[in-house]
């Protein structure tokens, strides 16, 4: 009897010290998505007219460790099919829980552009195969810096305010003083509203091609600077909401991006998604739209005669950069007509279990001024573990 007590005391003491020393928690998610474009010679979301599983499949593992005193450390490793499944550290941050309602994150984090920015890759948490591409189209999604999140209640709403600051840099794009604030309001389990504002000093590699040579030949360096995005003020604004009421679903987002003194078009993007839940099934229709506009201020700095004589410039119609089709938007700047694209999708989600969902989605994408009209069929499974 005595021995038994001793043994169990020893065991629990060991267990306690083990817990305190290494409470490492692993979680993960994965999406395996296959798709095919239904028109030859055209691509949609990276899919061609042959079945491929690369463009949107991904695997992620997250490890977090409770360090005590409100501190914790988290890393998320992500392998994307479109990056040959090379493992990259997508998130790496330390959290300090200042109080029950106030949390500070520091490290490599997600830029909160959109409603789904934070869990962009966690397919299980939304009903599309991937979030709408005309809205979710920016070429970067992370930053290094700080984020402060405050939650609470005000009148009938639960609110979450996030303020953040930091920077992003890659080979092609640099954003300094990247800062923003966003507010989410939730009401009575079925309504959620969100709005966000972000600013930053944007520099990216935009080749102006022959136009650049021409401007330099004429000594129009100011005009060239006005077109090139170099430490120019970028502003991003987004507003959106979601209703999940009596198994009816509706979601809406509208975003605007402008980089002053650059040839990047003013991007105005939106989507509306309407759906219905039938037990384990969700049927969902989504409409997306791009109404981009020329960045007039930048364009006015090119003498019209010169612009007219430039082969890459469409006469009279301005010089907006078309950023829609290639997701590599900014580093692949093309000078083309005003971007005006739309897309519609019809999709089904089926919950296999509490942690696995099957999805099928048909999408049609149309952009008249580039003569694009392409459809794709995608299907996949999303897991969370």
């Amino acid at each position: 009897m005595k021995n038994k007590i001793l043994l169990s005391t020893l065991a629990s003491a060991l267990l306690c010290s083990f817990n305190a020393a290494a409470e490492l928690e692993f979680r993960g998610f994965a999406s395996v998505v296959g798709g095919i474009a239904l028109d030859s010679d055209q691509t949609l979301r990276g899919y061609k007219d042959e079945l491929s599983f690369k463009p949107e499949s991904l695997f992620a593992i997250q490890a977090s460790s409770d360090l005590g005193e409100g501190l914790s450390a988290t890393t998320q490793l992500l392998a994307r099919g479109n990056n040959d499944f090379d493992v990259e550290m997508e998130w790496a941050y330390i959290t300090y829980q200042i109080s029950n309602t106030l949390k500070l994150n520091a490290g490599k984090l997600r830029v909160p552009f959109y409603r789904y920015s934070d869990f962009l890759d966690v397919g299980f948490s939304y009903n599309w195969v991937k979030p709408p591409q005309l809205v979710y189209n920016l070429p970067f999604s992370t930053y290094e810096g700080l984020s402060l999140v405050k939650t609470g209640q005000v009148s009938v709403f639960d609110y979450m305010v996030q303020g953040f600051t930091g920077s992003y840099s890659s080979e092609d794009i640099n954003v300094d003083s990247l800062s923003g604030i966003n507010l989410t309001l939730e009401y009575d389990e079925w309504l959620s509203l969100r709005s966000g504002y972000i600013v930053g000093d944007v520099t990216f590699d935009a080749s102006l091609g022959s136009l650049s040579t021409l401007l330099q030949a004429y000594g129009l360096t100011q005009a060239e600077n006005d077109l090139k995005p170099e430490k120019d003020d970028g502003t991003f604004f987004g507003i959106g909401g979601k209703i999940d009421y009596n198994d009816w679903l509706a979601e809406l987002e509208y975003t605007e991006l402008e980089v002053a003194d650059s040839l990047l078009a003013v991007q105005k993007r939106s989507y509306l998604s309407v759906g219905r839940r039938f037990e384990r099934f969700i049927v969902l229709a989504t409409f997306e739209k791009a109404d981009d506009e020329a960045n007039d201020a930048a364009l006015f700095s090119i003498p019209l005669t010169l612009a007219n004589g430039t082969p890459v410039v469409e006469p009279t119609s301005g010089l907006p950069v078309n950023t829609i089709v290639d997701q590599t938007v900014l580093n692949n700047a093309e000078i083309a007509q005003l971007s005006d694209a739309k897309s519609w999708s019809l999709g089904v989600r089926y919950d296999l279990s509490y942690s696995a969902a099957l999805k099928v989605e048909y999408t049609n994408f149309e952009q008249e001024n580039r003569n694009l009209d392409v459809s794709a069929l995608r299907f996949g499974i999303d897991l969370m573990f």
Partner: protein
Amino acid sequence: MKRLTTLIIGLFVFSVSAEVAVIVNPSVGDALDRKQISRIFMGKDKSFPSGSDITPFNLADGNSVRQEFEKSVIQRSAAQINAYWGKYVFTGKGSPPDTLSSDAEVINKVKSSPDAIGYISSDSVTPDVKVIATF
């Protein structure tokens, strides 16, 4: 007649065993309704109405009492609740309640900590805990 009695008792026992009891420490004086309990388990409320901290504990995934609790209190499917938590756990914004593996463990946790809240089959209730609501 005997058969009928057995049947009635059987039905009674069945319906009783299907009930979920939400339990707290006997020292807790607060009352909670369904919505409040749901908010606590969804991470929205972190304190009792009286202001003291509250920590919810789940039973394991797939546990039948948990399924009943999610159906009648949270009123969403297990997949929906999991998807909801996916938005928090992979973004450093929160985490779902810790899980305990049995009714007995929930009772132990609740009787020893005044800030704990859990749910068990109403058959398992002991005098060590206070039932704050049944569903």
